[in-house]
């Protein structure tokens, strides 16, 4: 039985956390994820959860607290954004390499320089090589649903990796929308309890964690970690299938929207996918063959599957909500284009960097991207590959 509610994305995440009732929440506030520990602190004060709520003095410490707790055999969570995530950088790698399936909610926000509190994906994209599984949400419902699936994915013995559950700061974290919630008992049954085989304390076979790793062993551990990330693909699909049985809501590595006969396609992450979906419907009514792919799982990267989904398309625009400063495109573009390299017939492909620091992206902006793709198809010329959209600029707009 689902419960119809209206919640912001942050409320939805906090509600999922309450239903799971984890052992430890290590909390340090940062906009726009601050509401998550704020709501959770109320649950603690009201006795609605049995969680040990640890308030710390920095994000480096909140992640370190999660690492200590999870290594001891507890289920530990936290939430962060932007500079908070950046401040965790060192220990993100520790969590992943110790194979501790911590779950962290991220309300994506631009990184400082200049300071900005609004949404883009530069924080979690900056951590894309840290060894964490990354799930991204379009709206409050997906943030909630991804959160419920995160522990069954990360804690599985074939995976044992930490998971970031990302949503767009403010755009969905602070937007109240309709949502269907699961009953508490359903969540408890689905997420289950966490009983690691080995842990620092309370076990017959105590585990040493975090020792020095010499040359003869370090590489083996890294390869095991890489294998775990590959294994996560099957586990993500299995958990999605179980989740669909419980809720009727379907998840995969990505969502294909009206892609069957699409000639022009956009690949995008997060809330912009919803805006793109509305524009796809408008253009389809005009007889234009357009489609959209919304990437939900960025780590592990579903390269073969994405390539297959794009194999019949003539022109693709990958929309990056982070600027990787690689001088030739953002991170999503690099990976999507690389994924398509082995296709016998590759689509034309461009990158559109957009929405940095909260720059708004409306349906009319999506229309501009499709118009660029139509022009590419019409002329057979790719034109400029690496584009920025929406900025005030003296250069001629390429999108």
């Amino acid at each position, binding site marked *: 039985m689902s419960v119809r509610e209206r919640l912001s994305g942050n409320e939805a995440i906090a509600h999922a956390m309450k239903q799971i009732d984890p052992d430890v929440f290590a909390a340090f506030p940062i906009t726009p994820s601050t509401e998550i520990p704020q709501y959770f602190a109320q649950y603690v004060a009201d006795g609605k959860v049995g969680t040990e709520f640890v308030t710390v003095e920095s994000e480096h410490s909140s992640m370190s607290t999660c690492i200590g707790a999870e290594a001891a055999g507890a289920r530990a969570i936290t939430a962060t954004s932007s500079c908070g995530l950046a401040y965790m950088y060192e220990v993100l790698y520790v969590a992943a390499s110790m194979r501790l399936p911590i779950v962290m909610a991220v309300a994506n926000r631009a990184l400082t320089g200049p300071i900005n509190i609004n949404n883009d994906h530069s924080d979690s994209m900056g951590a894309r090589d840290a060894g964490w599984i990354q799930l991204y949400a379009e709206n409050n419902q997906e943030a909630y649903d991804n959160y419920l699936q995160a522990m069954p994915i990360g804690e599985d013995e074939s995976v044992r990796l930490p998971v970031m559950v990302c949503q767009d700061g403010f755009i969905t974290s602070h937007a109240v929308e309709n949502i269907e919630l699961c009953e508490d008992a359903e969540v408890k049954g689905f997420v289950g309890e966490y009983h690691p085989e080995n842990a620092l304390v309370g076990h017959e076979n105590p585990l040493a964690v975090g020792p020095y790793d010499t040359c003869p062993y370090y590489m083996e551990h890294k390869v095991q970690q890489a294998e775990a990330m590959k294994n996560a693909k099957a586990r993500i699909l299995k958990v999605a299938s179980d989740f669909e049985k419980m809720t009727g809501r379907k998840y995969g590595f990505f969502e294909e929207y009206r892609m069957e006969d699409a000639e022009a396609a956009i690949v995008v992450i997060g809330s912009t996918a919803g805006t793109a979906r509305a524009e796809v419907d408008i253009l389809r009514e005009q007889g234009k063959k357009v489609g959209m792919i919304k990437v939900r799982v960025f780590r592990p990267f579903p390269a073969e599957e994405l390539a297959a989904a794009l194999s019949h398309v003539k022109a693709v625009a990958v929309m990056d909500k982070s600027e990787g400063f690689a001088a030739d495109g953002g991170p999503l573009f690099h990976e999507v284009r690389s994924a398509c390299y082995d296709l016998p017939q590759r689509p034309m492909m461009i990158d559109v960097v957009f929405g940095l620091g909260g720059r708004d992206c409306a349906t009319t*902006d999506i229309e501009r991207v499709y118009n660029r793709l139509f022009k590419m198809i019409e002329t057979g010329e790719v034109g400029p590959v690496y584009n920025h959209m929406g900025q005030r600029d003296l250069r001629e707009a390429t999108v």
Partner: protein
Amino acid sequence: MSMTEIRWHGRGGQGAKTACLLLADAAFASGKYVQGFPEYGPERMGAPITAYNRISDTRCTIHSNIYTPDYVVVVDETLLKSVDVTAGLKETGAIIINSERSPAELRPLLNGYKGKVCTIDARKISEEALGRYFPNTPMLAAAVKVSGVVEPERFVADMRASFGHKFATKPQVIEGNMKALQTAMMEVKEG
């Protein structure tokens, strides 16, 4: 798909965001799909802020700001001088302004806007009902009355429940807010 888009203009601390979220609550209670979201920036007391509602019969997936609203609600009259409040406002819609002045007096300040202009003296209503100046409740009521996004009787009943929840620890303000709500629905002037 019929969708109503509403843009709120206020100043930090006046409760425009709260009114926007309460409208989303009320529309949700009446069975609608809703979005209620503020536009965040370097906020501080008194700075201009914007908030948005989308209300529809099916889920709206668009996650951008609203550029062509059906209705605009101005919680602080002084914003008329500094913010282009009628930007993109549909002429089939309306603008609702917190002011003791009449719609006819304000129309010349609205960049030639030809649609409906409504005013409501939220200060007077709030001070009489609550003893203090909280413009958001009267502005919310005026927005519901003018836009018709929620059936008025249903709205009043839902808001009583909503205030009961919101002010569980200070029930003495519930009646005052209900009075402000009902007075505003009667006193909003259309021109």
